[in-house]
């Protein structure tokens, strides 16, 4: 995640997701943004806070198995650049979605709920909490 180009790729993937949803004729712009936010936040939550271990054999004699992806970033050091970036993306998406849905109540509640799902587990206080 610290490698060059990974953050840019992350942003590109989010916009490709939005572009795919926007291409479907019957989906309006506000529904497209809410769907983008919701799908992104749920995938973000699953990949960073549910999956544990590493998808390849690490040489740390199984140490990584107990930690989620999020806890393994930068060996657990909090508030690094990568962590801040991953913390900010759901919030920015929430603001964009709120803007494009003209602050409609239903959309707002859905976007807020999924944004909290993606942001709250990233707080340092929840490090290692199960």
């Amino acid at each position, binding site marked *: 995640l610290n490698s060059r180009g990974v953050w840019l790729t992350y942003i590109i993937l989010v916009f490709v997701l939005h*572009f*795919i949803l*926007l*291409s*479907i*004729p019957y989906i309006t712009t506000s529904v497209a943004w809410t769907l983008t936010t919701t799908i992104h936040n749920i995938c973000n939550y699953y990949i960073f806070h549910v999956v544990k271990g590493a998808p390849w054999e690490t040489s740390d004699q199984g140490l990584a198995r107990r930690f989620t992806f999020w806890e393994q970033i930068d060996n657990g050091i909090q508030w690094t650049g990568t962590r801040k970036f991953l913390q900010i993306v759901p919030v920015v998406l929430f603001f964009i979605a709120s803007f494009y849905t003209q602050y409609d109540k239903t959309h707002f509640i859905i976007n807020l709920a999924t944004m909290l799902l993606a942001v709250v587990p990233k707080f340092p206080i929840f490090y290692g909490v199960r």
Partner: protein
Amino acid sequence: LQYLLNTALYMLEPWERALFSAFLFAIISTALYSAFVFL
């Protein structure tokens, strides 16, 4: 070959390549259709 190498499809089996290419084609065609309808 450049398309297969840059999208990493070069490593996949033929049916996976076809699946991914069809998916890509579907996205681009719906995007063009929507753009056409919208514009």
